[in-house]
């Protein structure tokens, strides 16, 4: 294509946070770059161009570039988004302010470790099937109704991108809050017939003010999840379920010896 005035894209302005917490000399600051927009430009393309042209050191994460791996979440003009799925043409004034997602450990610039946070969450909600059944590989698996399987798969679509955490004021104010991703995980095992855990068991994991009862229903998760998971519905469902768990325990146990 000839480089005529018509084909020239508009100039985009990127303001990008730069900071390296492991370097004592480094101070958090914003750096501005101007870049010509190309057809169908995503933030993935733009950031790579910036790295190539201006800032070889710039740190940011991408793996799949297709909204599948969940590693490219960042704050774009205050909203957490998957950068690989964010088109620059959706920003009419051409100004994009990029910040790392808060609530996760910052490595450098736009690169954060969501994995560590997600590990903690997975351990807390015991994100694995709890079953007493012995697996017998010589036998056919138990049949599951397609609707039930679908309901489980639906909630299993979470890519652990952390966007629900970064869009939730509760999670940002209170770092011990389990977050929508954690509550969705509980709902996922609750609906899965392979998991034998009861409401009482889930109560032990998230039945407190840093769990389900800490949710203030701000619905940032519901409105920003890139996978469109039904977070409002599932969190409300788990809340009803756990708020009504019977109180069977708590009894006094005193052993008198001698």
């Amino acid at each position, binding site marked *: 294509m000839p480089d005529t005035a018509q084909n020239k894209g508009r100039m985009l302005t990127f303001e990008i946070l730069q900071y390296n917490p492991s370097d004592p000399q480094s101070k958090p600051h914003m750096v501005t770059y101007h870049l010509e927009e190309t057809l169908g430009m995503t933030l993935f393309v733009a950031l790579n161009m910036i790295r190539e042209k201006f800032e070889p050191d710039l740190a940011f994460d991408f793996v799949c570039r297709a909204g599948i791996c969940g590693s490219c979440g960042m*704050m774009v*003009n*205050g*909203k957490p988004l998957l950068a690989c799925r964010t088109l620059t043409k959706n920003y009419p004034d051409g100004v994009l302010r990029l910040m790392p997602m*808060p609530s996760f450990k910052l490595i450098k610039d736009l690169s954060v470790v969501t994995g560590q946070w997600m590990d903690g969450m997975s351990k807390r909600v015991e994100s694995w099937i709890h079953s007493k059944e012995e697996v017998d590989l010589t036998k056919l698996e138990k049949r599951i109704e397609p609707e039930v399987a679908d309901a489980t798969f639906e909630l299993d679509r979470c890519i652990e991108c952390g966007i629900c955490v970064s*869009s939730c*004021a509760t999670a*940002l*104010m*209170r770092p011990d809050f389990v977050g929508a991703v954690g509550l969705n995980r509980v709902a996922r095992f609750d609906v899965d017939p392979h998991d034998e855990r009861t409401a*009482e068991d889930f*109560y*032990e994991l998230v*039945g*407190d*003010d840093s769990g389900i*009862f800490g*949710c*203030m*229903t*701000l*619905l*940032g998760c519901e*409105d*920003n999840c890139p996978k469109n998971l*039904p977070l*409002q*519905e599932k969190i*409300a*469902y788990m*809340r*009803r379920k*756990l*708020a*009504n*768990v019977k*109180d069977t*325990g*708590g*009894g*006094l*146990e*005193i052993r008198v010896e001698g």
Partner: protein
Amino acid sequence: MASIIEGYLGKRVDGTKSRMPARLDRWQSASGLFLGLFMWGHMLFVSSILISKDFMYTVTKMFEGSFLFAHPHPIIVTLSITFVFAIFIIHAGLAMRKFPYKWKEYKMLKTHAFALKHEDTNLWMIQAFTGFMMFFIGSVHLYILMSNADKIGPFASSDRVWSDGMWPLYLLLLFAVELHGSIGLYRLCMKWGWCNGTDARAARKRLKKVKWAITAFFLTLGLLTLAAYVKIGMEHRNDYGQRYQPTTAMTAPLHLSAQEVLS
């Protein structure tokens, strides 16, 4: 002993978690629900002044027990307000657990809310702010009415609004309650999924519209009502303290039939 063990160790003696967080969450919502619905009824009653002074008079006499007794008993009103005040205090005590307390929390909340520009987060900010306001203005209002339960009526109330200078407080209270209450009721539906139906997302959109309509309705009604009391209060300023005498016999049949019932 079990309670001491739980207090120190954060675990009950059988190793399970306390059910208290669940209970507190339910009470927070139940008290909010009660107050939210009560405020709808309350607004409809005080706006009776828009129909006529006689009608408002009848309504106040009804709350003083005109349907049961021959003479008014303002103590009924005092006790009712005491009850509402108690729920108000319980609700405030439970809901304030969600406030940002430390500067760091507040800073994070403010930065995030302003950057995210997300409607429901902003609605919560309004709710927290108006909730904080009501600690003070709500308490003043409730205490004054509790201790002046015999001085509610077309003239007595208007004198309070105008001559006693209460109208600025009522104006603030009106906005605080109507915003806080309707946002709170909407949030309750989202929080517990009461209105989710088969399509939760469509239901939410609809409910949001209903919420704004309710806010607009009660704010308009409230402003008109306040204006009516201000107007009467201004006209009545020189007769401050004088009580209203009903012009029609609107309440008489009520008294009679009640007495007949009792005799």
